[in-house]
């Protein structure tokens, strides 16, 4: 009927501590509780974003 809506992805990724799989912020938002969709472990780590950071050596 109509084309599917395209939601912009935030690109924020998390990593499960036990199974080490990457999970996006949208996948986590599906269920109300925060847990890894693959193994169900509730502790996740934020993966550092691939942005070049400029720092002053002071």
């Amino acid at each position, binding site marked *: 009927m109509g084309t599917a809506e395209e939601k912009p992805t935030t690109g924020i990724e998390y990593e499960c501590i036990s199974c080490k799989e990457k999970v996006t912020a949208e996948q986590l938002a599906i269920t109300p509780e925060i847990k890894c969709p693959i193994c169900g472990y509730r502790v996740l780590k934020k993966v550092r974003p691939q942005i070049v950071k400029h720092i002053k*050596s002071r």
Partner: protein
Amino acid sequence: MKITILEQNGNSLRFVLSGVSAPFANAIRRIIMAEVPTMAIDDVMMFENTSAMFDEMITHRLGLVPLTTDLDTYLLPEECDCESEFGCNNCRVSFTLDVKAEAELKMVYSGDLIPENADVSPAVKKIPIVRLANNQRLKLEAYARLGKGLEHAKWQPVSASTYKFMPIVEIDTKKCDGCGDCVKYCPKNVFSIEKLKPVVQNEINCTLCMECIRHCPIEPSPIKISHDKKTFIFYIESTGSMPASKLVKEAVKILERKTQSVIEQYKKVK
């Protein structure tokens, strides 16, 4: 005015400057520390840092690494025509660092900084930056520029820039009883015993501490300690950016420039 070099080993220099006033000697000492320009890393682009140390701490450590400096090729950013924030080829040098630890612990050293131009490279290659554990990686690009010690201590080209007065040590052997206490208590071995009386063997090492007079049993003491107010013994120790003798020469040039500008200003007002 006269300069006599006492010793010169690698990066350190000890010389005697005679025939000048204390303010002049102090001006030279202060300019060497704070106003002779040196190269040091000022900006870092961090691509990847999975090490145990956070970004700002690593860049702070990189900024403190002494780099060999060539004052003729590069300009201070204030004096460069480009006036850009990041600088151009005349006022900035870049380095890359890419270290990954594989199976075992690996230490990232200052020698791992690869310069784009070999003239400006780390003066000492074995300064530890951060230790990487298994699968940790540090990847960055660093930009160095000229700066002065006034702005930040990383741009200080010396680890020691000091002077002392030339000591004058005299003994009136006729009044001395030969007890030998001055020889025993002097921390710098200025005295030694010859024919049962103390003699001055090492006058230049005296620090004017007066321990010899304090322990001398005779009052007033036959030992006379004073100093020459116009003669200074300098000790300059460079961090490796430039040889110490070059630092002194640059400091004199800067002092000359400063006095010239004062004279010009005075002429305008007059």
